[in-house]
């Protein structure tokens, strides 16, 4: 049985869902747990086609609660496990993923956002930002990458497995229905040939030796009897998270130095935002571009700086202010005027961003 799907770098043309399945294979993912929901179905389809050829596994569960919990189980058994979902499936999955946060389990979850609330559309939105970044009960100690194109879907899915196992926080790839279904080119590669080293997985339970005698006992808890006990554990988590922030935060920006208006966007919307800013700059207009790649943790320092330097910030998203809320929180105390272009559940074109910027310039 061949152990590698990708043995050399090559350009391919495929849908985003197929990209995710290939990336998970390349990242050495050992098992996927899942329950079908549009628009992420084809991640499962491609994975189940590839997995048997490369000695990987798949389990379809009865719902997303179960898919989430079995992913946790896979991780506890020391497997690089992942799942994928969308919309109401993402809602259900917050219960197990909150448990992953409590037990510091390195789960990898791919979210292909669809419209909401509830069943809504199977098509597209950026309306799962609040849920994916802060999730269920708890404090949202997670890592969330918001990708914008197929190359990033490939690169960051690979990265997600390493980041999750290194820092032990639940890690997410936040895509959307457009990225899931559209086709475009990208370069696929064997990560090891590019010098990417895999962080090894290790079992949480079933380790050799007697706990307390041969090794430290493993206390993986999601239950506490007294308030103070939980408080102390959370303090450690917060400290770990804060220490990690500068190592994982990512963003992309240009032309912000002298900008009167900085366009803020994330994910697939940033493609149009980038193009809009480039076109407006060519016309001599002082417009800048800023896009957080990690929505959790956010590049807070850079955002705060923007909010004191630029005159206006324009937040563009396919939701009614979910990304906007994250930004507002980060820039508290900044002086820039806060403006928006919100189109919940609807795609945003380059032309629309240009005309909104022209309106406020």
């Amino acid at each position, binding site marked *: 049985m061949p152990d590698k799907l990708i043995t050399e770098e090559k350009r391919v043309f495929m849908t985003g869902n197929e990209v995710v399945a290939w990336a998970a294979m390349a990242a050495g993912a050992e098992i996927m747990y899942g329950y079908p929901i549009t*628009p992420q179905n084809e991640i499962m389809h491609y994975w189940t086609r590839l997995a048997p050829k490369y000695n990987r596994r798949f389990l379809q569960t009865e719902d997303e609660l179960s898919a989430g919990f079995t992913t946790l189980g896979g991780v506890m058994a020391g497997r690089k496990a992942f799942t994928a979902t969308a919309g109401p499936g993402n809602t259900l999955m917050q219960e197990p993923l909150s448990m992953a946060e409590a037990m510091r389990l390195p789960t990898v979850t791919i979210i292909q956002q669809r419209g909401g609330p509830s069943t809504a559309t199977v098509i597209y939105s950026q309306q799962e930002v609040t849920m994916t970044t802060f999730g269920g009960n708890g404090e949202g100690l997670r890592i969330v990458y918001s990708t914008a194109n197929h190359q990033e879907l490939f690169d960051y899915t690979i990265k997600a497995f390493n980041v999750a196992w290194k820092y032990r926080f639940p890690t997410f790839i936040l895509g959307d229905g*457009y990225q899931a279904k559209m086709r475009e080119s990208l370069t696929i590669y064997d990560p090891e040939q590019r010098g990417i080293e895999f962080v090894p997985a290790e079992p949480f339970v079933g380790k050799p030796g007697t706990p307390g005698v041969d090794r430290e006992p493993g206390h993986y808890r999601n239950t506490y009897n007294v308030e103070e006990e939980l408080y102390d554990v959370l303090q450690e988590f917060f400290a770990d998270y804060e220490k990690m922030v500068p190592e994982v935060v990512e963003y992309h920006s240009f032309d912000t130095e002298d900008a009167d208006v900085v366009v803020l966007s994330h994910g697939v919307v940033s*493609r149009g935002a980038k*193009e809009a800013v480039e*076109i407006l700059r060519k016309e001599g207009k002082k417009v800048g571009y800023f896009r957080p790649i990690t929505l959790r943790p956010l590049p807070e320092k850079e955002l705060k700086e923007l909010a004191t330097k630029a005159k206006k910030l324009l937040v563009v998203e396919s939701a009614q202010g979910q990304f906007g809320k994250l930004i507002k929180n980060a820039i508290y105390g900044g002086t820039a005027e806060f403006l928006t272009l919100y189109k919940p559940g609807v795609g945003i*074109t380059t032309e*629309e961003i240009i005309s909104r910027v022209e309106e406020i310039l």
Partner: protein
Amino acid sequence: MADVIKIMLAGEGGQGVQSVAEILAEAADNEGKEALYIPNFGVEQRGGVSIAFLQISSERIGAPKFNTADIVVALSDRAIYRTKQYVGEKTVFVYDSGIDIPQEDLPKEAAKLLAIPALEIAKNELHPRVFNVIIMGAVVKATGVVTDKDAKNAIEKKLGYKFEQNPKLRELNYKAIERGMELV
């Protein structure tokens, strides 16, 4: 900005507009160009107007959807009404001449209105199954986004396994693409 050609194909579910868009996107990718194809999926897949957004460029493409197309191809009366909003002053609007629609309902602002008898040719000259390939030929000729050779190669890639079983199908598809090109 790089020159991007923006193509919109719309028709009834089952008319094969998504296949055409996918084959054209594959052909452009094979030529080393950047292509982005996104189907307008959703309820449309269960009987309604099916729309494909296709962009082809020499450089990376921005937003997956657009407001104004360079060429719109509408293959049913409902598709014409649905796609009118994507027509601008520079848009070439292609529709099937067999569609029964009042003249005043066509998008007047289009740079060019082009009625082609694709349905009729498919039915009477070739085969109803290659209707969408005739349309593809028309798009290839009207936009020049890919060569007819690359378009044929892309068809071969997608349908080659069927051609193996029945070589006549290959001939039929090639004829359809050529016939489509003649219509523009």
